[in-house]
């Protein structure tokens, strides 16, 4: 782990050094990469604090039994409906979905529900879907949702069952 940290620190410092050199000597590809980096960093910094605060509140307020009851081993189809709805209302896509999914899992949601959450967070966030439909047409968006959402659920159930059989556990930071 320590060696990894050293390597990544070296990479990051090298990258920053490269950007500084590029800006000083007007090296255009380097400058463009720098602008990309900054614009994405700003975008992330806009979304992530909200997501992590919501995760914090979730960890503090929501009781484990509630999640276990609605999203745990005993939950049926309703659990999937809940989790798709939850995914649909939270902005931020995959990046935000990973830590949230991890929190859900820690609170006792079963694996298939966790994977459904990730898939649904990627493909059917409500604001983004409306946005998509306005550019691509309602037919395009409907086909995409109607095909991908059931597939996400089916594959999540299969993957969840497979991993549960093999006693897989999600461990943060591994």
């Amino acid at each position, binding site marked *: 782990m320590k060696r990894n940290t050293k390597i990544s620190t070296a990479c990051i410092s090298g990258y920053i050094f490269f950007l500084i050199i590029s800006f000083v000597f007007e090296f255009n590809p380097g400058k463009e990469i720098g602008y990309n980096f900054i614009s*994405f960093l700003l975008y992330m910094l806009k979304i992530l604090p909200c997501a992590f605060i919501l995760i914090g509140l979730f960890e503090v307020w929501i009781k484990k039994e509630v999640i276990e009851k609605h999203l745990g081993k005993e939950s049926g189809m309703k659990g999937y409906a809940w989790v798709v709805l939850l995914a649909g209302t939270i902005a931020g896509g995959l990046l935000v979905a*990973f830590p949230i999914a991890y929190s859900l899992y820690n609170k006792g949601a079963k694996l298939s529900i966790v994977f459904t959450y990730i*898939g649904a967070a*990627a493909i059917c966030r409500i604001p983004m879907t409306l946005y998509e439909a306005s550019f691509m047409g309602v037919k395009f968006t409907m086909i*995409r949702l109607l095909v*991908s959402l059931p597939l996400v659920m089916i594959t999540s159930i299969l993957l969840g069952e497979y991993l549960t059989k093999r006693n897989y556990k999600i461990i943060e930071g591994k």
Partner: protein
Amino acid sequence: MYYTYTITGLVLIISFIINKQKTLKAVKIAVVKFKKIFPTFITMLILVSIILFLFPDEVISNYLGNSSKFISVLLASFIGSITLMPGFVAFPLSGILLTKGIPYMVLSAFTTTLMMVGIITFPIEKEYFGVKVTIIRNFISLFIALSVAVVTGIFFGEIF
């Protein structure tokens, strides 16, 4: 994006009114978790910045427009998998590509992989789920994206 802020703000205030200690604890959890994952985020952003430089919009539309439909679908899913774009960039871009005559099925492969398959988010995903599950999930997502593309092609009359 703003509605996320509004909701977060409201929830935070309500929580604070009900229980100060719990709310502070929540914020602390948020900070700790954020700090833990932040270096990985930076690594990912570095990858993003380089890859976006290598595949700018013009390159993407060039490649997707100049080959046969099926090769385009594969190319589109490849590009969609290795790049990461927020929806507010990806859909306008797809809208433009559509007016340039690029088939719906190619664009559906592009947008779906863009949203579901994350080679660039791999470092983050593996922090939470481990390497193996991350690889499996991404392959499943690629398969889903290709299925969506095929069905889109059928419904828009682009395959038969």
